[in-house]
């Protein structure tokens, strides 16, 4: 029956009080646990919901997951308004306050270093979607094939149109990522989102996070906004500002600041896998003489 401690974030001490109405996970208001010049933000949560066994079952329960994730994010958002928090992963739970203190002591150097690096920075999420389903443009434009030969030609046209679309999307995403990455202090690539999960229309070809100083965020948003006329058939979505969730990983890995992005390879292979799945792309010569029927402009 003893309450457990759910930890949202670690930050430096701050003066501005959190909004009084704020409730965290399990309806418990977040409390500040000061230790060694750092602050852990914690809620008291019931053991029957947050024990190992209970958590395992809850994580398969979408309603519970949604509620908990939103409550967690609500506290992180409130913290982001008054300080620069180091957000912890969902469902980090300790037995009691002293367990939290031990954790702070074990990692305080890492925490301080990362807090220094992230001070005054926020994260922006940028996603690019290929709006038109790849099979539609050519299929809609093409008349019913009159013969087997027509049918084959038509299929090649469609394949080609799909490839063009994919290539344009990939080029656009790469260019955008480079532009935004130059402006941002750091960047991370997340795996593309599954449309079945996001419910978003179109295929997600870029899912990236950028670390930007708060003071330069307005320009960053404008920079994203200016891309809107660059490519037809694509949609850019911006989310944020977030706490720097995607840029605290080096604490966990204990590997310091790894240059480059390990996600790049993942994205590349996901894209080529997706491209391969769009149809057979055997290089028949007839393909070269078939006109562009996408009607999407260039």
């Amino acid at each position, binding site marked *: 029956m003893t309450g457990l401690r759910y930890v949202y974030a670690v930050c430096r001490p701050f003066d501005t009080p959190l909004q009084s109405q704020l409730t965290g996970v399990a309806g418990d208001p977040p409390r500040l646990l000061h230790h060694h010049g750092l602050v852990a933000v914690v809620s008291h949560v019931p053991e029957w919901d947050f024990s190992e066994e209970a958590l395992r079952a809850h994580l398969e329960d979408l309603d519970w997951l949604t509620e908990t994730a939103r409550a967690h994010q609500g506290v992180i958002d409130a913290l982001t308004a008054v300080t620069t928090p180091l957000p912890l992963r969902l469902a980090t739970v300790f037995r009691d306050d002293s367990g939290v203190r031990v954790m702070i002591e074990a990692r305080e150097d890492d925490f301080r270093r990362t807090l220094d690096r992230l001070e005054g920075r926020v994260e922006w999420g940028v996603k690019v979607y290929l709006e038109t389903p790849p099979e539609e443009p050519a299929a809609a434009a093409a008349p019913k094939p009159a013969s087997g030969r027509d049918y084959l030609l038509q299929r090649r046209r469609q394949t080609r149109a799909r490839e063009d679309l994919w290539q344009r999307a990939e080029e656009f995403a790469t260019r955008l990522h480079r532009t935004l990455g130059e402006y941002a202090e750091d960047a991370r690539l997340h795996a593309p989102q599954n449309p079945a999960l996001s419910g978003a229309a179109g295929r997600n070809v870029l899912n990236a996070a950028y670390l930007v100083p708060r003071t330069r965020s307005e320009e960053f948003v404008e920079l994203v906004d200016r891309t*809107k006329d660059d490519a037809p058939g694509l949609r*850019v979505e911006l989310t944020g500002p977030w706490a720097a969730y995607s840029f605290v990983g080096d604490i966990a890995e204990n590997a310091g600041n790894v240059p480059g992005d390990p996600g790049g390879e993942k994205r590349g292979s996901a894209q080529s896998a997706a491209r391969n799945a769009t149809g057979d792309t055997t290089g028949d010569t007839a393909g070269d003489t078939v006109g562009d029927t996408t009607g999407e402009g260039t």
Partner: protein
Amino acid sequence: MTVVERREIALVDLLDRLLAGGVVITGDVTLRIADVDLVRIDLNALISSVNENVPSPFQGELRGELRGELRGELS
């Protein structure tokens, strides 16, 4: 092309950060599930609930298998 700023944060964007990002600390109660497993559990839960046509991979044997796998890691 349009740039969309959404008011309500999509759950999937939240999970990108709360389950794939954030400082990973093994609390003294927290599950010792590898990151990938954790994400898989949640995304499978999501898939099966957003789309009734997709059978949950946690039904029947698969569910038992996964549980066994987790138990193995926990012990």
